[in-house]
């Protein structure tokens, strides 16, 4: 009996841990800023690719077996920086317009996907050159007060000139170095991250084997949740983030730099996406589309859990993961064997894609009773 329960429990927990890990960053950002980051999945994808790069870089060294820890740190840093860039470059102009933010971040996600597909030395050289010339000249123009009235015209001119230079130089590079410069780094095909040796087997309990990679992800998720909990509750910046989440205007009045808080939160949320991507890369091959597979599940966790509550996300992820696994593995089949009709229904939904159908139906039913999620935010401003 114990072993019979172990499998669904473990399977559900392992789905839940991935869900929670990927939803954690999204939930924090959404709770604080009301911003839906559609590029969250792509940030995960970039985290997975970072893992791939780190793994290849360390293949020959003594750290080959421990690359995963380095990859976690690298993935966090890379995606956090990218998140910061995203916040400073796009999202901050769109606060208070959630639907527009959703579309803009979707645009970012498309660009990131295609970037990963076609990134090569040639493309990188082109982008770097363009940024150097364009933003360099913008910086120079902004320093000269007498040029201020022609700023827009000059900027347009510089845009044309710098893109011209970037395209020409990168084309020359491509022509001289041929394949070495034009070959895509990753390509459209997926790449494989191999788990380190010590993660490849599994823990044997009775007749059932618990894969170490899954256990590792569960542990990682717990560590991340504890880390975030500690950060939000024990540090000064955590306190500021919580204050801004609860009442932005009042926090601002009391001297909390809300803009810095926003940027910091976005960076942390993105960094968590990177960690999630690193974990996901252990489970299967990584392709430019990886992020898309997780994004909606992740949103569902946030919706079911309620906004702005860590504990809501945890409970929701666990519940969705368990239900998902129980349905897709048909674990309740022995229980309904008394009725042929019920068995047929359960068989019908017993694939991972059909399980999603049922889980969604259950979520919609659930929302009829608790429209604001499991742990709704309380306060006067909730239903304006």
């Amino acid at each position, binding site marked *: 009996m114990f072993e019979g329960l172990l499998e669904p429990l473990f399977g559900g927990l392992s789905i839940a841990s991935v869900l929670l890990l990927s939803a954690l960053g999204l939930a924090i950002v959404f709770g604080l800023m*009301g911003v*839906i980051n559609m590029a969250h999945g792509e940030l995960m994808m970039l985290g997975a690719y970072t893992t791939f790069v780190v793994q290849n870089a360390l293949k020959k060294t003594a750290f080959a077996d421990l690359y995963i820890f380095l990859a976690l740190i690298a993935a966090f840093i890379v995606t956090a920086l990218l998140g910061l860039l995203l916040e400073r470059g*796009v999202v901050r*102009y*769109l606060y208070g*317009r*959630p*639907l*527009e*933010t*959703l*579309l*803009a971040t*979707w*645009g*970012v*996600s*498309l*660009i990131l*996907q*295609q*970037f990963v*597909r*076609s990134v090569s030395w040639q493309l990188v050289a082109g982008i770097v050159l363009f940024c150097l010339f364009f933003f360099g000249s913008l910086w120079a123009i902004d320093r000269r007060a007498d040029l201020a009235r022609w700023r827009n015209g000059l900027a347009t001119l510089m845009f044309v000139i710098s893109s011209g230079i970037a395209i020409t130089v990168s084309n020359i590079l491509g022509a001289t170095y041929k394949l070495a410069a034009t070959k895509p780094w990753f390509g459209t095909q997926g790449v494989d991250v191999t788990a380190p040796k010590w993660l490849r087997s599994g823990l044997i309990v009775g007749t059932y084997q618990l894969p170490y990679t899954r256990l590792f992800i569960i542990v990682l998720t717990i560590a991340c949740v504890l880390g975030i909990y500690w950060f939000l509750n024990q540090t000064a910046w955590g306190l500021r983030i919580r204050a801004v989440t609860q009442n932005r205007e009042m926090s601002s009045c009391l001297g909390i730099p809300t803009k810095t808080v926003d940027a910091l939160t976005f960076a942390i949320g993105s960094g968590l996406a990177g960690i999630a991507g690193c974990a996901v890369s252990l489970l299967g091959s990584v392709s430019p589309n990886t992020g*898309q597979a997780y994004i*909606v599940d992740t*949103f*569902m966790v*946030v*919706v079911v859990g309620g906004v702005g509550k860590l504990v809501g996300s945890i409970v929701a992820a666990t519940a969705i993961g368990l239900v998902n696994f129980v349905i897709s593995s048909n674990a309740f089949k022995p229980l309904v064997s008394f009725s042929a009709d019920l068995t047929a229904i359960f068989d019908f939904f017993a*694939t991972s*894609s*059909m399980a*999603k*159908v049922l889980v*969604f*139906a259950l*979520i*919609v039913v659930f*929302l*009829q009773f608790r*429209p604001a999620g499991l742990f709704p935010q309380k306060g006067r401003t909730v*239903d*304006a």
Partner: protein
Amino acid sequence: MTVETIEPKTEAPASLGGRKKRYLLLEAGIVIALALVLLLVIPPILNGIGQTVRVNQLGRYMSLAIVALGIDLIWGYTGLLSLGHGIFFALGGYALAMYLQLQLPTGQIPEFFTLYGVNQLPLFWQPFYSFPFTLVAIVVVPTIVAGLIGYLVFRNRIRGVYFSILTQAALIVFFNFFNGQQKLINGTNGLKTDTSLLFGIQVSDPKIQTMFYALSILFLMGAYALCRWLTSGRMGRMLVAIRDDEPRVRFSGYNPTWYKVFVFAVSAALAGISGALYTVQSGIITPKAMDVAFSIEMVIWVAVGGRGSLLGAILGALVVNFAKTLLSEQFPAFWLFFQGALFLLVVTVLPSGLLGWMRTDGILLLRSLLGRRPALITYPSLETDPEVEYERKNLGNRESDS
């Protein structure tokens, strides 16, 4: 939600009634003239210069413009961003494709069934033997699905991004369902329509395709008229009110739920028609029509054209789709970059789309290019104030004043 749209005058005084009518007649005349041009002038020209394929594209994109109108209705006017219109689009497409698949000698069932060892036609295929039923189903099935989803969601006052996420999740659910059911609807492979028969002629035949081209124009006109009628009356004002301040609408004693359910269902019906027309013109319907990316693309057509204006939706659908075709013919890899940039640009720089830009800055730019000073927009009473007039005449509008 923050778009300002120039709405038709709400309460036209009696003296303006005739003028309004004249405008309406003028608009109808322009629409009909445009439709005639599209129907009679454009195809021969394109055929003449050897671009026959473009006619088909134009027809397809016009059918896509119908779904864009629907999205404009629900997003531009009511402020509900639906990311799940692919569901209704695909339902309409599948309904027609199922009818076409069944155009076989009696006793036979579509070929793919035998591949999966199905000998009996599934029950829900049966009604699609009937042509009238199919025509009704194209509209009614999406309407019912949308009404149901809409009721369950709006009843709980789920709105904003939550609504968007839920529609997207519903989209994925439908995608999974259609994608996974090989035995019922041929799963990933979808249903091909171009080799099947319609009234005894193959669907890919140019004659039938011309008919569908004409039908696309007709239905686009019809959809435009419907949306125009819906948005210009009381209903339209209600929708805009819901978009701008829903709680206030509720506090005024209205129940926004039913308005929202209604407009969601109407836009779903439009999507169904659009899907059916698109399917027969492109020759196949697959679960890819329920891709997340495709449904978001529909939103960007509306955003590019200018949401909150029906013309913008149509314009956006045509412009973006042709841009996509041309760009992906030339640089296949660049389309995604371009599309991503389009999302960013429209949202940050052109929040009210091409048409909105034309109405405000475009006119000014045009005037300044033509060398005409922009007309001063200020209080008319000031313009006629003798003191102001005197100052303007004698002191001039010096640069330093502004």
